């Protein structure tokens, strides 16, 4: 789905006029391609202490832990800002701050680089969560990072993003999920993730042998895979090495077959609301592909109506397809004894489920419900090295949003820090990240893919 305005303000006279008038100038975002370098340009790692050193070591070191550190990415890493250098990424490690006074030095040093940050640059903070038991000054310093990061992200331009990693107490910066989150946020895979803080709860998960194929050997089921975001999720999971079972209703069979053939997976025509849906998809995955490791709940519908005009069939259809169906499928998977090899559940939430949206009470209830469901489901999977998480897309350029009235659509897609709609692939990249074996330490969280939409957190 095209964004004519974005094209206009990035070319020739359109660009000059937009600059003169002070119009929003969304930058074309770089997307991930297998084999392309993680960063083009040097990275700056700021902060003092062992965590900052370890993080710098991961960015600069040799691959696959030959020197005892879990992985190294061979980047050109600076530990202090070199004047006039154009950085591709700035990593600000703040895990050892104990008082708000300690924020100034690293933050202001990072600030000195921002005007020359490369297009599509990355600013990533690493910090610890503020807890009720913390000393007030410690909690203040840690919570301060939250406000700092979210504001900084709103100031970045040129397709650059600002995101954070929040390491639970006791989780080292070298934990697999911390390393994978760092890699995800630095890479073009997170192009439309902005102003977000990814919580890493546990030192769990396993780093991939090949960062271009983190899902090698994994079998994934994607519901709603015939079109839209689901079809692209199937593409991205397959690109990352997974065998993909593409699920959609029989009526979408032709499109579903095309997706399954494209990703060299299998098509399973199935209504997710059928009572035996969980058994059928599990049977298909295990008998045909030898197991089931990743369950992506993407199937969803909208039946918008103001609550005052809501009908039972509209309410029930949305809650049943979007929420009840996946609860039932999860129940089947969890009790089957087959979903035990570092299983991953990734469910599709929505910013509507976080911030609310007029006319979408039923949809927002289902999407909010998903956020609660993954939070409560993840702990049940922990004994198997498993987890459950959600992705909450903001405005994404799909067939569904293409049907919005033109003006509403133009406004909606500018209401975020990147001033544009995301692409389905941006959502799919986040799903693939949470589906990966490395994400085992991210427990019951919801990751927004919204370009830092102005509504909600």
């Amino acid at each position, binding site marked *: 789905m095209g964004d004519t305005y974005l094209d206009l303000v990035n070319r020739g006279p359109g660009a000059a006029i937009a600059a003169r008038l002070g119009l929003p100038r969304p930058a074309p975002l770089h997307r991930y391609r297998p084999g392309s370098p993680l960063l083009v340009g040097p990275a700056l790692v700021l902060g003092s202490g062992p965590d900052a050193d370890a993080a710098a070591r991961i960015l600069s070191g040799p691959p696959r832990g030959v020197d005892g550190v879990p992985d190294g990415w061979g980047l050109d890493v600076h530990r202090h800002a070199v004047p006039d250098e154009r950085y591709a990424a700035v990593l600000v490690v703040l895990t050892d701050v104990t008082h708000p006074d300690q924020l100034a030095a690293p933050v202001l040093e990072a600030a000195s680089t921002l005007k020359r940050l490369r297009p599509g640059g990355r600013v990533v903070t690493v910090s610890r969560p503020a807890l009720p038991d913390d000393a007030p000054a410690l909690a203040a310093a840690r919570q301060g990072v939250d406000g700092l990061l979210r504001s900084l992200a709103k100031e970045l331009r040129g397709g650059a993003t600002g995101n954070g990693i929040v390491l639970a107490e006791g989780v080292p910066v070298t934990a697999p999920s911390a390393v994978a989150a760092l890699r995800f946020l630095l890479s073009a895979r997170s192009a439309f993730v902005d102003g977000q803080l990814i919580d890493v709860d546990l030192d769990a998960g396993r780093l991939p042998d090949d960062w271009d194929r983190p899902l090698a050997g994994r079998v994934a089921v994607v519901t709603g895979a015939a079109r839209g975001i689901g079809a692209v999720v199937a593409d991205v999971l397959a690109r990352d090495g997974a065998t993909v079972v*593409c699920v959609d209703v*029989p*009526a*979408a*069979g*032709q499109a*579903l*077959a*095309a997706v*399954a*053939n494209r990703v*060299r*997976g*299998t*098509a*399973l*025509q*199935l*209504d997710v609301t*059928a009572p035996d849906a969980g058994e059928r998809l599990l049977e298909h995955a295990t*008998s*045909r*592909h*030898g197991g089931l490791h990743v369950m992506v709940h993407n199937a969803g519908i909208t039946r918008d109506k103001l609550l005052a005009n809501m009908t039972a069939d509209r309410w029930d259809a949305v809650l049943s397809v979007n929420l009840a169906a996946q609860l039932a499928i999860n129940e089947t998977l969890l009790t089957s004894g087959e979903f035990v090899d570092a299983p991953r559940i990734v469910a599709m939430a929505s910013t509507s489920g976080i911030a609310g949206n007029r006319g979408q009470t039923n949809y927002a209830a289902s999407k909010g419900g998903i956020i609660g469901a993954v939070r409560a489901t993840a702990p049940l999977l922990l004994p198997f090295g498993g987890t459950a998480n959600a992705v909450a897309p903001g405005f994404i350029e799909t067939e569904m949003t293409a049907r919005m009235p033109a003006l509403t659509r133009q406004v909606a897609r500018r209401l975020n820090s990147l001033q544009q709609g995301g692409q389905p692939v941006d959502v799919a990249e986040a799903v693939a990240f949470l589906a990966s074996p490395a994400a085992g330490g991210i427990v019951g969280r919801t990751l927004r893919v919204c370009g830092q939409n102005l509504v909600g957190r």
Partner: protein
Amino acid sequence: MSSPRPAYVLGGNRIPFARAGGAYAHASNLDLLTAALDGLVARFGLQGEVIGQVSAGAVLKHSRDFNLTRQAVLGSPLSPRTPASDAQEACATGVETVVALANKIALGQLESGVAGGVDSASDAPIVVGDRLRRALLDANRAKTAPQRLAALARIRPKDLAPVAPRTDEPSTGLSMGEHQALTTARWGISRQAQDELALASHQRLAAAWDAGFFDDLVTSYQGLTRDGNLRPDTSLEKLAALPPVFGKRLEAAPSMTAGNSTPLTDGASTVLLGSAEWAAAHDLTPLAAVVDAEVAAVDFVHGDEGLLMAPAYAVPRLLARHGLTFDDFARIEIHEAFASTVLSTLAAWESDEFARTRLDLPSAVGAVPRDRLNVHGSSLAAGHPFAATGGRIVATLAKELHRLAAEREGGGPVRGLISVCAAGGLGIAAILEAA
């Protein structure tokens, strides 16, 4: 060459059948067959796979489609190194391709195969008349301009009229319906019995769709998600109100209507076949073995037998070869070309006289238990794209037998019988057995 081994039906895929001029009005045989193959490949994860042989055919076929099946393979995600062949045996084409490939698998000549069939009554070939055709060919062969002009000068305006496709019997000039009307009269099949059979076909096919039975047998195409001919809400009253269309010049009261005859239909079907080894290597579950088959033909030209009665001969021979009776079959599929074709065939099998005079048997072949006959509906409801019907029946029956066997667990063999009549006085019968 090794000794025969079992050949299995591993699954199937078809597109919903559409009434001619309906959803697939502008799709070609190649489009339809490729769509059915695409769905099969997607269902079974066969992308890039070299299948031993794909064999399919069409009854109404353009001359340009001389390599129809091979072209469909090349347009599909199967490996382009997959061999393919075209076959044609009127409405028996689909079952014949299944039998032929199963036999090759049994003999060790193939490990896997895809059988299929397709027909588009909407995109049927229109040809020019013989006089125009000869003149054009002569002009093409001419060496000089005057010779070419002379050849073209033979063309008369009336030669320009195209020749519409016909499914009439070339030997008799009678349509299939008129032929069946003779048989209907011969066996005294009542209008009500025909309408009841048609109603059951619609009700059973609708129930199967509602139950999701076709979820892993059919892939939607061009917006059509169920068989376009299916009328779930039809009734005996509605069927009884339809005017007769065949047999109106016979002495007996005409009884064959648009409701108890199959309409012209577009569609395509495929069946995946393989050896036990190939199935295991591809993590696929055999549904049913292709046990045996029998073809027959009757002399309808001289009025010795009805055009569509050949299965009445093929089935008893097949049963005799295996020492089986109808009671030994859990399911029986008789293609519903017309309701009265099924009823005439059943009547023949129940007739002592037919057995003695026609089959050289001491007494009647037997009565088909009606609760085992076409349990998920058949061609009257689904429609009948000639060469595609066999694949529909084989895949449906194989799944049903496998389901029954799983339900019964540990009983005797769960067998299914197929009987398909075809133009030209042809018929084919086959036995499947749950794996």
